[in-house]
């Protein structure tokens, strides 16, 4: 029986334990639902987004379910969180993840769920012929077997290249282009006018007779009658290679490097301006030609100056393995296509609800299958780290749903399947040379990095691009030539993993700086002091650094830290146990955000005076929900009671245009970018800005006018800045007016039809765009470029376009990155000379996180970054090709991630006090991770004299290094 939500959420059973916290979800469930209309190729599609995660907080405030910490239990005073807003649900095991849901939980869905199994290519050399169904007894056979040719015409690749050009021709032309590139030795992409492949270049399912383009590409979807059949069949065919049948060899798809390529060459000038740089010259028609000329000059300068002993150069090859994000919840979801109403229902946990919906609708654009409504139930993702950003999982679920013959389907990967199909951190090879003058000042750098993107493009070229920005480390380098590219391969696809190319780039540059410090006989702090970057300097792209970085403080604190100061005594102590101990240090200057970021948030006041924050962003565990709940506290005198995540409808409610094709800043409804997918590093600065500015707007044009009305004519001359929140009441600082409660203010807003919520969009590119808006006759300026408002109890947003805008600096578009979260890691390790085992013993991270919104979240993120990076450095190994997880038989018994006992408890995070008037947080989810690998490797050198340049540093590699 399907229960109604009010009956079943957190209900007690007679034994006094919590019963199944199941919640019936559907249009009648009372869950937060947002709707919008999408125009897809001239047809209108209604999209309803139900936020399952928000239902949890919602129920708390509805009073049907009271968290034992009290309704305000998680919440401290305005601006303070005592716990995570979602913490109670998690610590009591409530249903919040997509994997927790079954069709029986879904109100109005018919029948039982049909489990789906995706069979994935284990052979990329030969044509896929079919599956050997004779391996399954008749009673275990799937109800339906979906091969690639059966979905042609039904689900389209949302990639214009496929629409415009036949795939075979595209491949042929790409092969020709690639051949030309190989013959000419050119490092730039010669694409012969071909539009390079988008994310979905290759079919979702390999058609029979064709070759798979990469390992793990689906070759068939099997849809089973029920769980028993599915489990029985799985036992018989999982891990059995001969279930898949292959025929004649196929040609290799030769694909040029994925666009865009990253080619950053910078020649500093004598004055503040550069002689040449990407940010200055990137729009020149012949930029690549000029850049390559300068590159050759830089290479020559290094050769000449090292020959004359004017400079000393340190250079080497580095390699790093692919890595699985290994988020704990394997991707899972439910789907049901109701042909009678042309409605596609999906239950998923994704990092990119906006993007997934867009791609999903694109799949059915020219399809025989008509979709007029999409209901997306957005769940809390059980970890993400980039691995759920534009993952093809949601699309696979959509395909299964429309091809099942009407049954609701459940697609729930096991860990083997997740390893075989999930997005990976890119394997990377790099060759870098860095040259110093005789005083230890860095003069020049050349760097070349290749990232293995695997079969699908995903965000690979952008990962290579950020690695290019990071290749120069945290240093002011007069001459630099950086080339970075993402290359198609037949491996499992790479994606936007935590650090986004930064960990790879910093491993290289920070290892080389350590090498130089040793050679110059200076401390790791001194060599960095001589070269560290800061305000007034430029990045390797040529963009100015304007933010306070505080690297000087980071270096001073690390040098004074006990791990460094006590290293001799610690070395002696460990030596008594037969272990070599060493300390290593490394820094990173990881950027947060992208070259331009659009973000939004809606802040609403209800009739009781309680606040809700809505966002399109998703909380992957990084704590954005909690952070967004408390950051409005200062402005609104109370934290948000609830936060609704994954609202893919909000952008549409603004009714704005975006993108250079659709307008410019001159159009008052235009912004450069709409919204992106969720990334943990976008919370503290970007999303917080949108929430705080929207809160200010709500105060200025909703709450303050309501207060004036309640205070009467005497308040006409007051300004918002004359007021202050005191103990939950809005007061006038100078006195003379009674304090007003949130409830009183809300009642006034509801009765007068005043502004009850503000949905604000903000755009950042070095600075925030600032819009001026006229609301009910009054002009206001906020750090927003678009708003939509609701009035009184009416919940529909009305766009309120700006009247003018202070736009972002046009030159900033070529700076690539402008904001940074500097971090230094000081790490002590032991090396067992007999076994080669490396164990991390102590770590201290020195982090410039700007203003800290919630300390517990920042330190948790930081510690998680250290643990994950330690795993990547020492434990997590994954060969490419069929030897790796592509084979379908990989799991945690051969892929080792850091367990609790592997991580030292002596882990400290030291955050720097913000300098000057910095009042904003910085996105730090990736920052701490970036310098961990080189700090460990440098510590190993300190301990043993062995320089490790190939990750992971396994005991075997360590033994080989120690034994020559």
């Amino acid at each position: 029986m399907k229960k109604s939500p009010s009956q079943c959420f957190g209900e007690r059973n007679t034994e006094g334990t919590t019963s199944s916290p199941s919640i019936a979800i559907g249009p009648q469930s009372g869950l937060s639902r947002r709707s919008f209309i999408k125009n897809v190729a001239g047809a209108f599609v209604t999209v309803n987004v139900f936020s399952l995660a928000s239902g949890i907080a919602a129920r708390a405030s509805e009073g049907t379910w009271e968290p034992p910490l009290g309704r305000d239990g998680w919440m401290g005073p305005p601006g303070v969180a005592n716990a995570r807003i979602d913490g109670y649900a998690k610590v009591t095991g409530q249903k919040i993840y997509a994997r927790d849901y079954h069709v029986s939980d879904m109100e109005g869905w018919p029948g039982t769920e049909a489990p789906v199994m995706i069979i994935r290519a284990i052979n990329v050399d030969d044509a896929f012929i079919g599956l050997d169904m004779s391996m399954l007894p008749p009673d275990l056979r799937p109800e339906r077997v979906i091969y690639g040719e059966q979905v042609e015409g039904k689900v389209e690749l949302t990639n214009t290249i496929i629409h415009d050009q036949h795939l075979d021709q595209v491949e042929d032309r790409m092969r020709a282009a690639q051949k030309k590139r190989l013959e000419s030795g050119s490092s730039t992409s010669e694409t012969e006018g071909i539009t390079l492949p988008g994310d979905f270049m290759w079919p979702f399912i390999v058609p029979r007779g064709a070759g798979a383009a990469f390992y793990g590409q689906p070759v068939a979807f099997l849809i089973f009658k029920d769980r028993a059949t599915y489990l029985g069949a799985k036992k018989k065919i999982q891990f059995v290679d001969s279930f898949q049948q292959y025929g004649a060899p196929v040609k290799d798809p030769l694909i040029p490097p994925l666009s865009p390529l990253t080619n950053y060459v910078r020649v500093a000038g004598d004055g503040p301006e550069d002689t040449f740089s990407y940010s200055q010259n990137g729009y020149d028609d012949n930029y690549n030609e000029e850049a390559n000329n300068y590159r050759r000059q830089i290479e020559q300068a290094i050769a000449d100056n090292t020959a004359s002993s004017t400079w000393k150069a340190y250079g080497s090859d580095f390699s790093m393995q692919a890595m699985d994000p290994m988020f704990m919840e394997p991707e899972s979801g439910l789907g049901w296509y109701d042909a009678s109403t042309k409605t596609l229902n999906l239950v998923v946990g994704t990092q990119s609800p906006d993007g997934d919906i867009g791609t999903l609708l694109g799949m059915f654009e020219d399809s025989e299958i008509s979709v007029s409504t999409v209901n997306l139930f957005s769940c809390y993702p059980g970890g993400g780290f980039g691995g759920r950003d534009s993952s093809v999982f949601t699309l696979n679920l959509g395909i299964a749903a429309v091809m099942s013959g009407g049954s609701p389907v459940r697609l729930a990967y096991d860990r083997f399947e997740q390893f075989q199909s999930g997005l990976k951190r890119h394997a990377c090879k790099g060759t870098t040379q860095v040259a110093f003058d005789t005083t230890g000042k860095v003069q020049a750098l050349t760097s070349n990095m290749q990232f293995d993107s695997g079969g699908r493009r995903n965000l690979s070229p952008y990962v290579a691009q950020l690695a290019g920005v990071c290749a120069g480390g945290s240093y002011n380098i007069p001459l630099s030539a950086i080339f970075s590219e993402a290359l198609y391969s037949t491996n499992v696809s790479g994606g936007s993993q935590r650090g986004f190319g930064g960990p790879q780039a910093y491993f290289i540059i920070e290892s080389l700086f350590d090498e130089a410090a040793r050679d110059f006989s200076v401390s790791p702090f001194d060599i960095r002091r001589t070269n560290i970057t800061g305000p007034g300097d430029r990045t390797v792209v040529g963009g100015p650094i304007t933010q306070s970085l505080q690297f000087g403080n980071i270096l001073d604190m690390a040098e004074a830290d006990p791990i460094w100061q006590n290293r001799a005594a610690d070395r002696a102590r460990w030596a008594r146990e037969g272990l070599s101990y060493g300390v290593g240090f490394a820094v990173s200057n990881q950027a947060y955000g992208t070259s331009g970021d659009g973000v939004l948030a809606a802040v609403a006041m209800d009739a009781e005076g309680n606040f809700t924050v809505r966002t399109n962003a998703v909380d992957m565990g990084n704590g954005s929900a909690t952070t967004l709940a408390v950051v409005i506290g200062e402005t609104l005198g109370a934290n948000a009671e609830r936060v609704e995540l994954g609202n893919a409808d909000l952008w549409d409610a603004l009714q704005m245009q975006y993108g250079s094709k659709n307008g410019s800043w001159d159009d008052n409804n235009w912004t450069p970018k709409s919204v992106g997918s969720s990334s943990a590093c976008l919370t503290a600065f970007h999303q917080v800005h949108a929430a705080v500015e929207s809160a200010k707007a709500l105060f200025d044009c909703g709450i303050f006018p309501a207060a004036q009305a309640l205070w009467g004519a005497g308040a006409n001359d007051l300004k918002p800045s004359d007021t202050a929140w005191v103990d939950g009441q809005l007061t006038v600082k100078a006195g003379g007016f009674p304090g007003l409660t949130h409830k009183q203010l809300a009642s006034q807003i509801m009765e007068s039809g005043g502004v009850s919520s503000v949905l604000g969009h903000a755009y950042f590119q070095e600075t925030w765009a600032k819009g001026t808006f006229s609301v009910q006759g009054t002009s206001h300026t906020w750090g927003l470029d678009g708003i939509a408002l609701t009035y009184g109890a009416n919940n529909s947003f009305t766009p309120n376009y700006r009247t003018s805008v202070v736009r972002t600096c046009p030159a900033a578009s070529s700076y690539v990155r402008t904001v940074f979260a500097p971090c230094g890691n000081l790490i002590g390790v032991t090396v067992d000379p007999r076994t080669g085992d490396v164990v991390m013993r102590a770590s201290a991270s020195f982090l410039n996180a700007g203003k800290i919104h919630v300390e517990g979240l920042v330190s948790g993120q930081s510690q998680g970054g250290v643990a994950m990076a330690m795993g990547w450095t020492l434990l997590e190994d994954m060969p490419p090709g069929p030897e790796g997880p592509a084979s379908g038989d990989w799991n945690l018994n051969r892929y080792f991630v850091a367990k609790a006992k592997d991580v030292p408890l002596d882990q400290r995070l030291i955050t720097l006090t913000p300098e000057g008037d910095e009042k904003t947080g910085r996105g730090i989810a990736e920052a701490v991770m970036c310098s961990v690998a080189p700090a460990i490797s440098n510590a190993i050198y300190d301990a043993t004299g062995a320089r490790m340049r190939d990750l992971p540093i396994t005991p075997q590699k360590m033994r080989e290094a120690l034994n020559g």
Partner: protein
Amino acid sequence: MADISFILNGTGVTASANLSDLPLVDFLQEDQGLTGTKFCCGIGVCRACTVSVRRAPGAPPEVLLACSTPLSQMAGLEVYTVESVATDGMLHPLQEALLKGFAFQCGYCTPGFLMAAITLWDRLKAAPIPASALDAAIDQAIGDHICRCTGYVRYYEAIKQAILNEGGLVS
């Protein structure tokens, strides 16, 4: 083969004999609707699926991995899952400590850590250990667990603090 009966969160449950191969985690999630016990690796490594069991009434509690325990091994056991821990709306002190200590992030590993810690707690209730042995006992309880979001430090700190605050668990 006979049907399989055991006690689940204080209530008797019976699984049909033809489910004897079914891992406990599937039975909990799909047949009982108790989805708090999590599936991650399915092969007994990550310990996200940890539940607490007593092999006989009054026997000391032990941890059990629900992903790699078929129902055939469950007959006669008392099983406790995360859903049983808070009683009458009151969080267990360990839950409160994890919550207030910001011990977890995405929370997917949390029921596993919690049930391992609860098992330790219940054992300490019955047989306190010297305070000096507590760190090792916590390490023993959760050292093999995997959490991909946190660096474990806050889990250790929260569990230790809750045990020390409770009184009577260490001597």
